[in-house]
Each structure stands twice: as structure tokens, then as C-alpha cells.
């Protein structure tokens, strides 16, 4: 089992400033799954009830000189502590930058090497797996070891791949939200009020969020959002209604789906905002299986989707009976 690559400038920019801080907020540990074409960071795909997130990068988006081999179809997966990984990259970049300025110009690429190693840690008789960051300078090299879990077995990797495949299912209707800031500030404040969030998404492009307790009902409705997938014209008589009545009627007509999710999960999913997506799509999966949020990234300076990066979250739906 071998993995070795150089982290590119673009890879550093993506991971250090954008993705690792955001993913770290979702959960401290995640699985890193490396294949011949992709590097994927996965949260909670194997254990059911947490917020799931999948951040997938094409190898070229992060690495140069990427070499991977394993007896399991060149696939390697392990669990890693994101804050340690983040720290290692940050300090490696710091060192790289210093060296770059010292050795007139040049970039981080070809200098920041990552590889999978097995080492004997201090005070231990058992060799342990690490992800090692090696920053090569003129005369010296700085090596940082980030401890990782034992690489997953063939069976575990196929389980992970199966979970990943099933996590790709798309909701029939997706609504597009551009102003994630507004949504985030709203949900941040809403958090104090209750724990369960009702979310309804309609084919008319309405996104309705509501927290309801015995003392208060607090909601927000975003209307006329662009719709992807199945859409329907909103009946004119619904226009004058309150947000609540409108979404109830749309659900009754079959034009909308409604689910309950945890406010905490919703707020966490909004942390993905730190990855600087250009917009987000919200949808409810078939049979109300989960609330899906897909973030979209454009190629810098264009309105074209950057297909080398993808990020989406799936929020488990709460059983209305249990709360």
C-alpha cells in the first residue's frame, strides 16, 4: 500500500483556507478516501445518524506527481483528525513560503510532499501509520507526521464506496440559494429558540424553514428561488397567504415536501459556507430520506461549474414521532 504526492499551490489554497476549516466544524475526524482519480473527505457515511458530508476533489485539483497503489484496486481509506491535518498543512505552507522567499521565488509545488508511512512512534513497540508532510528546503527538510487510523480493510473500503454511491442520489426538486450569508445569520440566531427545524421545499421555488415550540413559532420563507428538476407553477390564490399556510397547502397538493431536521445539523451544514461556494441547492430526497445540500463552485472569474470540486451534505431526517 503506497501513497505519495506533491500538494500543489491550488491544493494548498483549497484545503488550508477553505475546506479544512469548514470540514473541521462539521466533525473533528473524517475519512480520507483516495482513489486513482479522486481524493474524498467523508463525514459520518458509515454511522447513520450524524450530518453526512462528502467533499470530493479530482486529483489534479490538489496534487502533482500523484502515485497510489494498493491491492484493493489502488484505493486507500483511513480516518484522520482534521485539525491536525489542517495544522500540518498550515505550518508546512509557512515553511515553504519562507524557503520560497529565501530561494528567490518558486512555488510550493514540488516542495510539499505527502506520503503514507508506517513508523515506530516514541515509547511504542508497534509501528503506526502516519500521513507525513515533508517540506524540502535548500539544505534541510521539515517533516511532520499526522497520525491516522489503520487503513481500512477491503470490506470496509467497499462499504464506504457503497455508502458514497448511495449518497449521490439527487432529490427530484432542488432550489437554489444565493445568499448563504443571510441564511446563516438567520439560522445562527434561530438556534437559541429550539432544536428541531421544519424544512419544506416546493416545486414553486419556495424554501420554508420553521422552528416551533410551545412558546414560539419562528420561521423564514424564501420565495421564487430558481428551481432545478421538477417544478410547478404556484397557484395564484396562494399568493396572499401566510408562509405557513402556503407551505401546508403545497405539501397537501404534493407540490412540496416537508421534513424535520436538527437545527444543530443545519447550522453545521452552513459552515460549508467557509469553503466559499458560489451557491447552494437544497432538496429533499425521495421518501423524505434526508435533506440534501449541494454546494456549487464556479471556475474563478466565470459562471461555469468547476467540476474538479464537489461538496454536498446530507442531513438525517428526524422521526416526527420521537421528538
Amino acid at each position, binding site marked *: 500500500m503506497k501513497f505519495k504526492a506533491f500538494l500543489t499551490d491550488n491544493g494548498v489554497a483549497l484545503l488550508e483556507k477553505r475546506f479544512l476549516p469548514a470540514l473541521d466544524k462539521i466533525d473533528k475526524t473524517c475519512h480520507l478516501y483516495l482513489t486513482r482519480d479522486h481524493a474524498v473527505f467523508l463525514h459520518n457515511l458509515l454511522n447513520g445518524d450524524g450530518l453526512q458530508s462528502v467533499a470530493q476533489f479530482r486529483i489534479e485539483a490538489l496534487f502533482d506527481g500523484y502515485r497510489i497503489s494498493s491491492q484493493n484496486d489502488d484505493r486507500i481509506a483511513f480516518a484522520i483528525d482534521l485539525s491536525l491535518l489542517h495544522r500540518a498543512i498550515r505550518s508546512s505552507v509557512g515553511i515553504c513560503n519562507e524557503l520560497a522567499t529565501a530561494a528567490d521565488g518558486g512555488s510550493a509545488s514540488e516542495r510539499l510532499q505527502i506520503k503514507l508511512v508506517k513508523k515506530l512512534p516514541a515509547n511504542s513497540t508497534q509501528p503506526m501509520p502516519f500521513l507525513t508532510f515533508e517540506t524540502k528546503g535548500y539544505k534541510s527538510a521539515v517533516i511532520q507526521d499526522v497520525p491516522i487510523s489503520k487503513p481500512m480493510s477491503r470490506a470496509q473500503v467497499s462499504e464506504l464506496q457503497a455508502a458514497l454511491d448511495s449518497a449521490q442520489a439527487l432529490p427530484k426538486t432542488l432550489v437554489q440559494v444565493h445568499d448563504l450569508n*443571510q441564511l446563516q*445569520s*438567520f439560522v445562527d*440566531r*434561530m438556534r*437559541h*429558540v429550539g432544536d428541531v427545524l421544519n424544512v419544506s421545499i416546493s416545486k414553486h421555488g419556495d424554501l420554508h424553514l420553521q422552528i416551533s415550540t*410551545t*412558546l*414560539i*413559532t*419562528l*420561521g*423564514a*420563507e*424564501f*420565495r*421564487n*428561488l430558481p428551481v432545478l428538476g421538477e417544478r410547478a407553477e404556484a397557484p395564484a*390564490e396562494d399568493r*396572499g*397567504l*401566510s*408562509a*405557513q399556510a402556503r407551505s401546508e397547502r403545497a405539501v397537501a397538493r404534493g407540490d412540496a415536501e416537508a421534513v424535520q431536521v436538527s437545527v444543530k445539523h443545519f447550522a453545521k451544514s452552513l459552515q460549508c459556507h467557509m469553503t466559499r461556494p458560489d451557491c447552494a441547492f437544497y432538496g429533499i430526497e425521495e421518501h423524505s430520506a434526508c435533506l440534501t445540500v449541494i454546494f456549487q463552485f464556479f471556475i474563478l472569474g466565470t459562471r461555469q461549474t468547476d467540476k474538479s470540486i464537489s461538496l454536498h451534505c446530507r442531513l438525517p431526517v428526524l422521526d416526527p414521532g420521537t421528538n
Partner: protein
Amino acid sequence: MSSSAMEAEETADLLCQLDNVQGIVDALSAVRWKRHQDAVIEVSEHGIVLIVEDSGCLQAKVYLQRELFIRYDYSARGRPRFGVGLGLFVDCLSTFSVPGHSNIIEIRYPGPDMQLLLKSIDSLNACIYAEIRTRIPETISWDYDFEPAGSSPLSFTVRSAALKEAIDDLEWPGSGVQITLQPAPPSVMFKGEGHGDLQIEFMYYANTDLLVAFHCDHAVSHRYKYKFLRATTSNLPSNVTKDNRGSKLTIGRGGMLKVQHLVSVARSSATHQHNASGYQQPSRIAYVEFFVKPEVDGDDA
């Protein structure tokens, strides 16, 4: 539907709109001194008053005059009163305040089930709304009637920031704080006694920048529980200290202490316009008042 909406509008006791939610949130936060507080809201043609009370010893009022609202339609007979949880009300209001956005919200009372209804009305495509369940207010012991102690007032005005700092410092001795006013030399003394003792003195002539006004014709001294005194400044919004405002403290009959703060409710855009002297329209101010009863055995020590 629209006709019934019209009807609801006509039958509402109160329908008002305001354009600076954060200002109102600041003003109401000033009277939050613990986690669960029941507040009573009283609505009249002059505006909205929110009242909170603690252990029969401390009462606080926030006056939101009708001038603070961009629309204020009042059509009730009598003065409707209802109870809400203060924390919930403030948290809910702050949901409407989006930083960097001007937000207009509409408040209506009562809803079909006596709720307090709030909704944002500044955008067609995004709307935030809330329904807060109200309670029948518990009868508050209304013996906070503040009467002057004598023919001339016993009062002083001190910079709010200095007052807050002094009261924060008095935490160390804990327990009770003796406030003494004396005419010669004109000064105010805060004395904390408990684990040790700490005195903080404001001399009128020496600290005119801190002690801005002083009225006292005879020496007076009363003791107050520290936790109540602390409640009067513990949650002062930052704009009060930033604007270098003064807080007025008056001692009334029986040693009842009144603490008054002014909280700016100016729109964020309007703050750039106010002139160099820091003058703001008085209509853009919310008044916050605390009444603290003295400890009984500490009278005229």
C-alpha cells in the same frame, strides 16, 4: 383571505413597524440579568413599555416611545398588557436583525390566539415571521412608585461606562453596597462590604468629566444588595458606553434607587449623520429605568 387579513388588521390593538431592530434588541437586552425572566408588556398610545421584576426588590422598565417606530397604529381601549418570556422575545427579535441590512419589521398584537406577531416586510422574496405565545401577566407588586425623597432632588449623573466599571469592581467584596451622597464636599461614595471592603468615591469638582451632574442638599446613605445593583449595569449595550452617555441615579423616598440609562436606537445609517457634538434626536432614544429597593436595616447609617 385578503378580506379576513384586512379584518385582522382592523381589529389589532397594535400594529407598528420599526426599522432598527438591533436598537430595540440592545435596549431590551439592558434589562436581561438572568436566564429566565418573565416580562410584562404594556401597550398604550404613547408607546410600548416592557417591565421585568425580581424578588420584590428590583424592577426594570424599557420605554419604547411611539416616535421610535416608523408606523404606530394603536386602537385599543384600555391598555392591553401581556406577559412574554424576555429571553425568548429578545432572541426572537434578534433573528430579524440582519447585520449590514436595513430591516423593517412589523409587530402586531393580538393574533388570533392572543399571540404577539412579528414579520419582516422589507423584501418580497424573503420573509421572516414569528408568533410568540403570550401569557396573562401575573400581578406585579406595584409598590415601586418612586417619589422624591424631599423638596429637592437627590441625584447625580455619572458616565455610564464609569458607573459600570465601579459596580463591576464592587463584585469583589460582594454582598451589599452602601451608596452615600454628601453635599460638602459634593461627592458620591460606593462602599462595598463583605469579604473585605472597597470604597469608590466620585468627587464632583475633581471628576466633572465622570460625575457630570450632582444635586444633594443633605447627606444620605443607603445599602443595596450587590446582585440587584449589578443588574442595573450588567447588560448595558456597548453603544451606551461608546457614545459616552451618562446614567442618572436618583434616591427617592425610603431610599428607593432609580437608575436611568439612555440607549440609542438610531438606524445604523443615521449614526453617520449625527453631528460632531454627538447630538441625536431625542426620539431615537429608548429609556431604560431600574428601581432598586434598599436593604431595610441599612437606612440612614
